[in-house]
């Protein structure tokens, strides 16, 4: 039995604005094991976004430790964090965040570009990832030529392409209609079924319901009453 993919211990994030200091996270501890599909829920202002930034290695905690795949990333420099993000984390954003001037496979290969993977291998792996999300016939389409649901699938393919330890989805269905939402959630379920570790941040109950378990955040703390399993 290996340890958790992701382990937070008493993580705090304090923002200081003048004389005022605000604890966005007031001591969060949680573990996520390999293959889990976890939803993080909370109202706006709960610290949900801050938690997502720390989980995604986009920011570092003020105190406490965060271990990702056995590596303590809580005190890393920006360059080290960039490498961790590149190798360990696949992001899916609310606004898709595809580059409009690049076609589907060029968008998907971006993380591999920064990992220094050679061009032929990049193209192969990007094509495989797009095939995985059911867009094998859309390799050369630009984001503008794809529907919202398809664009989010491209984004999921981009998150998959580096074979990361964790897929971190931030409100991935926020910009989608109900049909595309079902489509993308179905895709996550499928990935989860294939053993992927997924964290999904949302404020919608029915989206969170798709996950195996739900962590609720309130006032910078994990809401125990909400039932962290």
């Amino acid at each position, binding site marked *: 039995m290996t340890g958790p993919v992701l382990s937070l211990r008493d993580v705090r994030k304090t923002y200081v604005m003048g004389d005022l200091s605000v604890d966005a996270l007031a001591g969060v501890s949680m573990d996520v094991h390999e293959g889990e599909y976890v939803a993080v829920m909370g109202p706006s202002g709960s610290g949900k976004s801050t938690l997502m*930034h720390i989980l*995604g290695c*986009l*920011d570092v905690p003020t105190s406490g430790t965060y271990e990702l795949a056995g590596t303590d990333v809580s005190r890393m420099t*920006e*360059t080290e964090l*960039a*490498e961790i*993000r*590149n*190798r360990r984390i696949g*992001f899916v*954003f*609310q*606004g898709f*965040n595809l*580059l409009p*001037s*690049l076609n589907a496979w060029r968008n998907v290969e*971006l*993380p591999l*570009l*920064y*990992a*220094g993977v050679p*061009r032929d291998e990049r193209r192969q792996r990007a094509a495989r990832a797009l095939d995985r999300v059911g867009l094998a016939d859309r390799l050369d389409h630009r984001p503008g030529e794809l529907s919202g649901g398809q664009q989010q699938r491209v984004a999921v393919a*981009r998150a998959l392409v*580096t074979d990361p330890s964790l897929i971190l989805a*931030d*409100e991935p269905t*926020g910009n989608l209609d109900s049909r595309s939402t079902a489509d993308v959630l179905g895709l996550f379920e499928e990935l989860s079924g294939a053993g992927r570790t997924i964290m999904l941040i949302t404020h919608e109950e029915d989206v969170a319901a798709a996950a195996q378990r739900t962590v609720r955040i309130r006032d910078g703390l994990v809401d125990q009453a909400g039932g962290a399993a």
Partner: protein
Amino acid sequence: MSTFDTFRSAFGALRSHRLRSALTMLGILIGIAAVILTVGLGQGAQAQVQSEISKLGSNLLVVTPGSTTSSTGIRGGRGTSSTLTNGDAAALATASVAPDIRAVAATSTSMQSVTAGTTNWTTTVVGTTPSWAQVRARDLSAGRFVTQDDVNQARPVAVLGSETVTELFNGRSPVGQSVSINGSSFTVVGVLQAIGSTSTTANEDDQVIVPQTTFATRVAANSTRAAVSTIYIEATSQATLTAAYQEAKALLLTRHGVTSTTADFTLSSQQSLLQTATATDRTLTILLGGVAGISLLVGALGIANMMLVSVAERVREIGLRKALGATPAAVRQQFLVEASSLGVSGGVLGLLLAGAGAAVLPHFLAQPVRISPAAAAAAVGVSLLIGVVAGVYPAGRAARLAPIDALRND
């Protein structure tokens, strides 16, 4: 990220804003072309002057009457008083006194109306000795030059410049014909080979050479114009030019009973003539080059400005790239490559424009434009440097952007 991928990505970004990139590049293009052309014009002018002055002869020293510079630094009127004599020339030609001087030619000049038949032409008439042809490195295209015998006998013979022949004889052979100068009849014995007209010195192809003695008695009789206006001295070699200069100076100072500060003559070498003639050209080149340099600076500011706009516009893209694993160094590199690509392509296109200008301009300006490979290489190097320098600040800003600020969903 490999170098190739960095460049591909940078060109992709520049292509997606074609007009803006093109306009920014235009700034550098114009600046580089302006600098290369002004410097090229300056160098062309200098080369032209250089070739003009070398046409005067080789290893040449020139003595003119009058002093150059007083102790207060005020330039005196060169050639205003006639203090040189044929005796000076004869003394300079004495091997025992001045061993490094090979030949000396004293000249007297006068503007005269020269008539052949019914044709009339006003030109410079030069009275001199047979050594003139050697000292001034001139050959004859027909006939012979003035001989010592001609000088001794004060014969009425004349050697004509090629343009003078064209004006007076309209293509017919002048040798054996006679021309009239100041009422006296002269027989044409030779024609000087053309050396090309000059703009910085007197027209060397339009003059009439007569023996010194004949000049004194027939052309400028009873007038101060009979005095020697210039003495040309040829040193034995390039290496002895300085020694010849010193010998000539010492000899003339002694003969005239003056010191360096009260000298009543001016002794100049080809080198000093060259320096005087090119000094103004150089000043002008530096001035114009400076103005062109300013336009290049403006072009550089254009790049910096565009890159700043580009960074501000692409905050989301930068954030995304960082989230996907771009290190600050990779982001900085991408923007630096974009900026320097703009600089270099502007520089290369500017070089091409300058090349086209160099080919076309001489037809309108009667002025050669010389673009040296070194200047061309320097231009491209400078444009690369400009791109990099202009890109440093915007690239640094892009590299420092925090991905969370860049990725906000609003």
